[in-house]
C-alpha cells in the first residue's frame, strides 16, 4: 500500500489537507481506497468567543469566519 499526502491544498481558503491510501490496480495505474481522508487544519473557536457578547456583535465577528 502507498499513501498520498497533499497538505496544504492550494487556491482555497481554509487549510485543507488530504491523506489518501492508494493500491496498485492492473489496468489503471492506481485506485483510491475508501479510507481517503481530508482534514481541516485550523480552529479558532468562534462559538466560545461569541459567548456573553451583544447578539448584534455576532454579525460583525462571524463575518470573519
Amino acid at each position, binding site marked *: 500500500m502507498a499513501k*498520498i499526502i497533499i497538505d496544504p491544498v492550494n487556491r482555497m481558503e481554509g*487549510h485543507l489537507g488530504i491523506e489518501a491510501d492508494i493500491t496498485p490496480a492492473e489496468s489503471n495505474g492506481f485506485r483510491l481506497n475508501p479510507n481517503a481522508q481530508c482534514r481541516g487544519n485550523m480552529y479558532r473557536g468562534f462559538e466560545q468567543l461569541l459567548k456573553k457578547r451583544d447578539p448584534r456583535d455576532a454579525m*460583525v465577528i462571524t463575518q470573519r469566519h
Partner: protein
Amino acid sequence: MFSIKITRRQFLKWLTASAAAVGMSQTDLLKLQNAFAAGPTPDPTMPAGTLARVIWITGQDCGGCATTLLNYLGNPADEDAVLGAVAQGAVTPIDDIETLYPLGGDGHVDIAEVVLEIVSIEWAYIVMAGSGDVSNAYLASIVEAGGYVLMMDGAIPINNHGKYCKIMDVPGDLTAQASWPAVATPYVNVYTTTDTTNGVAAGQKRTEVTMAGGALWLANNAAAVVCMGTCNSYGGVPAAKGAVTGAKSGWEWINQINGMHKTIVNVPGCAPNPDWFIHTVASFILGTLNLDQTLDHKGRPKLTSTAIYHVDQTYSFCLDCPRRPSMPGPTTLLAAQKSAAHPNGQCLFQVGCNGKLNAPQNNRADCPTRKWNPFEDHSKNNWCVGNNMPCQGCTDPGFPDYTSPFYKQPKTSV
C-alpha cells in the same frame, strides 16, 4: 461558431480576479514561468535580486486579507510618493506587462502588475499554482538562502504546541536545516512514514509544521516580516475574549515571546486596505522604509498626512468624515442613513461608530479619504461609514474587545 474576443491583457486580469495571480507565473504568458514552484531547487533563471521574494504564510485567518490584496488597483493620482510611483508604473524592475502586451493595456496598475513586476510571491497557499509536496519542497529549499520578506496573515495559536493551526506537511526533517531555530522545535512534528508516501519509499522523514513553528522557522532567515491584518498585527478576532487557542500576534510570538528581534511591520485592518500593504512592500523594496522614523508606536507605517496613518497622534479619522457636522447624530441607524436632507448621512457616533477613539487609541487610518473597493474611476470608491456601517475600529489593537459592543455608543467622549 462563436469566438470569445479577449485580449491577453484581459485574460490576465480575469486570471487575477480568480485568484490565480501566482499561477500565471508558471505559464508562458509571462517571462516568469519558472519563478515559482519550479521544483525542489531554486531556478537559476529566476531574476534574483530584481524581484523581492515574498513568502506568505497564513494562520488563523478568514481569507479577507488575501481577498483585499487581490483587489488592489493603483490610483495614479495618489499623493503618496511611493503609492504614486507604483501606480504610475515607476517601480518596474523587469519587463512591464503593458509594454509586453500593449493591446490590452489599460494604463492602470493592479495586483497583476504588482505580483509579476514588483514582487515574486514564492509560497502562498491561497494563490499558488502548486499544492502539497511540490510547493512545500520548493519553500524548504529557498529558506536557507534568506533575503526574502516573510508575510503573515491570521493569528498564531500557541496552545497545545500550536496544533490549532497546521499549515503544511513537508517532506524531509526541517529541524535538521542549518537555519532552523531551536525555539520552533516543540511546534513541529517530525515523523517517519510507514508506507510509500508521495512516491518516496517508507522510512522517509516528514515534518508537520504548525503556524507557530512555521512563523519562527521562516522569520529566522527573513529580511523583514510584514504582519498583514489585525489578527497577525495584534491578535484580532481569534485572540478575543473567550478564545481558547492562545492566539498571538506576529510581534508577540516572534519578538516578545521568542526574542528574535526581527524587523516587523504591522499592516493592521480587518481587512487592511491593499494600498497600505502595497505601500509597505514597495517602501521596503525602494529602501525608503526607515523603520525608526516611519513606524508609529504600534508598529504601523505612519508616513505623511495624506498617506496611510497620520503622524499627529491627536488625529482621528473622524476629522475627515463627511458626517462629522451632525455629531453626535441620531440614536438609530435608520435615522442616520443618507437622505435628501442629509446627502452624506448623519453621524453614527451614538450607534457605535469608533471613528473617534481617545488617545492613544486614536483611530488614525485614512479610510475617509482613501476609501475601499477601487473602481478605475476612483471617485466611486466607498467605505464602511459611507455605507451606514459604524466604524468598528478594526485597525486598532483593541479590536474587537475594546471597540465592542459594535452597535452601542463607544467608551469615549466626543
